[in-house]
């Protein structure tokens, strides 16, 4: 009599083992594609945590964010697939800018010793262009936390992703709170009002469009974009390129970072830059390690 054993494979794998196997499967599917570095993982995870912390505080200041994050770290972040491109784009942009900042040359100090008078910074002296640039800079600085770590401003988040994250956080809080009816209603209201507030907030995309429109009207677009490249002011370049190409800032940042050198003139064509002006950009990107190059599909904003 032959004995038979069901060949169902190993017992149900642990979440850790499953994660390892998924990682291995992804690796085997594209062994030569290159993979995330620890720095890239850490940056993206930190950006995700800061975003979740901010959104939880928007929903209900009583939410135990530490417990929420610990739970999500253990069980996986619910909206991981939708969150990944946003976090990766922000992380890569930060790496690029940080590399530029660290290698940036600086200027010799001025010789003026007096100048104990107030600088000319009156609001009335601001031109429309200066005011739009200032607003862009403020919108950009909202994309950092108080320690200077990269973050995603709520105003810059894709509305669908925002709603998904808010609902995930609310669901977690309700489950932990054993479904208090009053709290459920309050959380529902908070999700709605946070979504509405985001629609009226002006993030970096709106400021980029406003700045771009003023430069177009003044005929300064190409000169300002070329100046931004020379100064390694990548925020301004990305903002102008995004507005000119009618794309989101994050998409354009990722498209530039993942672009082959040959694709840069195409991506930046609306800015009408001469090829020599692109040299510092090309050089800066070339020095950024572990880039996920998009290859032939340069405009697609590939993610890891």
């Amino acid at each position, binding site marked *: 009599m032959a004995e038979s054993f069901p060949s169902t494979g190993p017992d149900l794998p642990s979440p850790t083992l499953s994660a390892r196997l998924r990682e291995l499967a992804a690796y085997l599917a594209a062994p030569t594609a290159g993979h995330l570095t*620890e720095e890239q993982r*850490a940056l993206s995870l*930190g950006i995700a945590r800061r975003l979740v912390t901010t959104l939880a505080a928007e929903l209900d200041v009583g939410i135990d964010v530490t417990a929420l994050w610990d739970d999500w770290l253990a069980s996986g972040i619910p909206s991981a697939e939708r969150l990944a491109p946003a976090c990766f784009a922000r992380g890569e942009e930060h790496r690029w800018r940080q590399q530029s900042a660290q290698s940036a*040359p600086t200027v010799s*100090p*001025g010789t003026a010793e007096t100048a104990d008078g107030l600088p000319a910074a009156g609001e009335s002296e601001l031109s429309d262009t200066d005011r739009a640039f200032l607003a862009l800079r403020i919108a950009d600085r909202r994309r950092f936390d108080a320690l200077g770590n990269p973050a995603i401003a709520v105003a810059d988040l894709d509305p669908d992703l925002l709603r998904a994250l808010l609902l995930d956080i609310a669901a977690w809080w309700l489950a932990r709170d054993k479904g208090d009816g009053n709290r459920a209603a309050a959380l529902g209201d908070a999700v709605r009002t946070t979504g509405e507030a985001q629609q009226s907030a002006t993030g970096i995309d709106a400021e980029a469009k406003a700045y771009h429109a003023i430069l177009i009207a003044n005929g300064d677009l190409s000169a300002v974009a070329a100046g931004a490249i020379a100064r390694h002011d990548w925020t301004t370049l990305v903002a102008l390129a995004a507005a000119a190409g009618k794309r989101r800032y994050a998409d354009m940042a990722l498209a530039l970072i993942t672009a082959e050198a040959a694709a840069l003139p195409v991506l930046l064509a609306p800015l009408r830059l001469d090829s020599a002006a692109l040299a510092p950009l090309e050089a800066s990107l070339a020095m950024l390690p572990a880039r996920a190059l998009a290859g032939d599909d340069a405009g697609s904003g590939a993610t890891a």
Partner: protein
Amino acid sequence: MSGERIIRGRVDAGGALVSADPSLLRLQQRAGAGLGRPLALPQLARLVALAQRLQRDISRPLYTADDHSDIHALVRIAPDADGATIEISDWRTRPVVMPQTPPVADVGIVPHGWAWECDQHLRVVALRAGAEAPSIPAGWEGRSLSELFELQPDADGRFAVLRALARQASFQGQRVRVEIGGTPLTMTVAGEALFDATGGFTGFRGIAVRDPERTGAAPTSGTIDPAFGSLPLSDPQFGRRIDGALRGPLSRIIATAETIHGQFDGPIRADYARYAGDIAHAGRHLLGLVDDLADLQNIERPGFKAARDEIDLGDLARRAVGLLGMKAEEKGIRIDAPRTDDRMPAYGEFRRVLQVLLNLLGNAIRYSPEQSQIWIRVDREGDRAMVTVADQGQGIATDQQAVVFEKFERLGRTDSGGSGLGLYIARRLARAMDGDLTVDSAPGQGARFTLSLPAREA
């Protein structure tokens, strides 16, 4: 020079520069050579030789110096049968004074303080409160810093922030008054000057800390550091000036000495070439000392705080080995690094931990005998993640282990390989990340330096 986008040159098979755009030719001439002479810029010459040896294109950052400034550029060498073509892009001159722009995270915020940033006209572009700080006033966006903060003059009737603005330099100790919800607060503001890639001043970034609620508080600046006597080490102005005054000349001394040592401009007597090598070596040591002093000034600044990144000590150890592996190979030293699957998740600031590991590994290579071995191991004990660097050097006696982390302590070593600040800085950094740096050694048995940090669950 920055007007030229791509600077080209051509080197023949013998390594002589046969054609060059004016900028490159000027550098070659300042290094004492010219057209038809061997390439006199040591780093560039080495890259050309490497590309020719490998027979493939090489693109690398290039750092060199002329009479007035340091130069940063990206160089691409394309070798062929008759020599090599040089293309230099993103050519940027760094003026002799170099007030290093800090990465954003370098200006650490204290829990009871605000982090702020303003543009070159002192218009505030960022303002954030620490966890225990007073809430920030509404409508700060774009307001003048001097309007948001009511500036208070110092004892001489001057305003540190305005003097810093005139000099485009960093400042500290600016007392200000702020009104929050009708309540006046006194704060002390410090800031670092920011510059873009063309050297243009772009503003300040800094912190504002609420003053203790008592009168007659001692001033925070001008403290005397015992290791430096009366040198005002905590004054960024002083550090910056020393840094700028030394770095440029030292870079030029090193570049010139390396040119002579490498005999790029033709053969010279062997002992003279050796002397030039000694000069370059000593120059690099002094440059390292300037770097260490700049670092020391940074980490000893009040409110210095390292970031809490999620890091992997195994990965960082392998990175350190990657960076210093060549140096070890020159002495025939084998480094036994953690395997690629050896992970040790921890919390710490990525680049600071790498800095500590480079210091430990650099020391191990420097003080290990030739043909010896260095081990790097990662481990975990309870809530501490650890990485240990062990060597087969002469070791350190027990009584000396207590002082090895002191400033300028070099344990009687008189060679020019280190400043005596590296381990002091490394331990300060480790402790700023809630970790520690310890040593375990005995004479003749090598040394084991262990960096421990808060462990992180993978």
